[in-house]
């Protein structure tokens, strides 16, 4: 028997997120779990990725987990830093391969809300605002959306589109003039993609111990389900040990709340 404890749901999110990254890609790193997933990718299957950050840090040397996307660890001996406009401009002009995006709400077309629950006229809950989210999601060739899934957090339609996914589905994202688009959604349940014609979210893989019914129960809209659902193998012990001992040794992001 393995002596390594099985992955908790947050660790599964970080692991699946890391698997979205291919070696040698230029990866735009946001705060939190995406940072964990990217660091894990670099320490496992994708050692040659280049990390870039919205505050301007580019390609830092490896160091401690950044406390913020503006942390000195994001520009540790960087060969160059960039102004914010140029750092986002890279996504538009085609020098960034993949970016990650979290949100309080993600809807069936991958639109993301980080602005307000309710409306600005009738605020139920005010969120921090776009930050770089809209920029990355509008421009980057491949976006990966990340969130803990509940019916409220996965509504049919977000209260406010901070970061556009596929808008109303079909061709509407391209018609709006947007570039790239979301390729996957990662939650504690598993991994989703977007069905190529309708651009609706579709379950394609589930985490160990999860099933299609759970995915549906934790979703506020009718989920598409792929013809063949892959069951994700648990992360190998050595990967879990890297995640726990090297990537996030203080458990800031991968410890489940009590």
């Amino acid at each position, binding site marked *: 028997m393995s002596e390594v404890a099985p992955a908790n749901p947050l660790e599964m999110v970080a692991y699946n997120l890391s698997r979205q990254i291919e070696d040698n890609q230029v990866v735009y790193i946001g705060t939190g779990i995406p940072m964990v997933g990217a660091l894990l990718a670099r320490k496992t299957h994708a050692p040659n990725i280049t990390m870039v950050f919205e505050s301007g840090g580019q390609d830092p040397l490896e160091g401690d987990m950044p406390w913020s996307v*503006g942390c*000195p660890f994001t520009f540790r001996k960087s060969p160059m830093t960039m102004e914010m406009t140029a750092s986002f401009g890279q996504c538009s002009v085609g020098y960034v391969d993949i970016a990650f995006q979290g949100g309080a709400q993600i809807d069936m077309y991958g639109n993301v809300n980080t602005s307000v629950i309710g409306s600005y006229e009738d605020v139920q809950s005010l969120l921090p605002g776009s930050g770089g989210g809209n920029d990355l999601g509008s421009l980057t060739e491949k976006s990966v959306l990340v969130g803990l899934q509940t019916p409220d957090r996965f509504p049919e339609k977000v209260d406010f589109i901070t970061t556009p996914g596929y808008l109303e589905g079909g061709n509407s994202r391209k018609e709006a003039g947007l570039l790239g688009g979301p390729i996957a959604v990662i939650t504690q349940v598993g991994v989703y993609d977007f069905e190529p014609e309708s651009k609706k979210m579709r379950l394609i893989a589930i985490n160990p111990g999860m099933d299609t019914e759970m995915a549906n129960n934790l979703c506020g809209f009718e989920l598409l389900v792929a013809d063949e659902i892959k069951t994700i193998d648990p992360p190998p012990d050595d990967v879990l040990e890297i995640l726990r001992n090297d990537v996030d040794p203080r458990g800031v992001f991968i410890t489940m709340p009590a």
Partner: protein
Amino acid sequence: MSFLYTTEEQFHRLVDFEEAREHHLRKDRTKKDKRLSLQEAVDRFVEDGDIFAETGFAYVRAPIQAYYETMRQGKKNLIGIGSPMSNCSKFMALGLMKAIHLSYIGVEMRGNDKNFGRVIKNKEAEILSLWSHGSMAQGFKAAQLGMPFVASKQLLGSDLAKKNPFVKIMDNPVGKDDSPVCLIPALFPDVCFIHVQKADKYGNAAIEGPVVNDLALAAASRKLIITAEKIVPEHDIRNDADGSIPFWYVDAVAEVPYGALPGCCPGHYYWSREWWERLVRVATPDKEKLQQFLQYWILDCKDQYDHIDKLGGIRFIDEARRQAEAAQLFIDDSTVNYAYEEVKPTDNIIPEE
């Protein structure tokens, strides 16, 4: 447009290209000693009703001690802008800022700023326009480039564009195809402070580490005050001219060592991470607690040195310096420990001795 707290003139001044140009044209070009104390600089150059831009990156090389002096002097009816602009929440809590152009107010994964939600919900402050970091940054950059607007691929299709009366989406009139673009006007704040590692007495100022939007904002802003960790001889700036701001943009220079505390300043000091966690986790959820917090850390401090005493004095500074230097590999990072105890929502509002 109708506003709760903002005049039409204040609203339109943000995009008034001609007026900003006139203001810059009137600026004294003399290369002279522009040093003032921080108190004098705030007194003379921040006016009630100004559009006040945040610089740096919220808590990285941000002129936070200048913000605090502005709060202590009670400059009021300010309009906040910046990319990001997390410190605006404190101005709003003190009733000094009643309107904002919003990109982002928060402390990332440390927690949501509940005060921001409360003041907007209670209509103690209003949001005039909504932006992303990058689109607002493009507005500042357009100003620096002397361009009345830029055409962006950001904001398209979003509800941000619907809640932003300054931007306009149209088909690209000059491209190979007519794929839509979002026109972002040049943005001209009235005043900003920029904190730098070194400046000379004339105002030439050099930034170490990411400049974020500060070169653009230096050119865009009608009034510009440099706060510097240290004043150096002019030839020091000439030797190391990357990321520099020219003296003729600058109205005043204040030497403010530790001027970015409790944020971090590359090359000088790391954050008080606990301070920011205490702010969002303990103070902002409760209006009374936040007032106590701001009283203790800002209003009851005479200057940054009082603030440092409360952070732990020379012990805090020495650890913060070592952490910053190790993060940038100026010293052996294996000798520095980044472990710390995160602040819990149930912790005290004032740290225990």
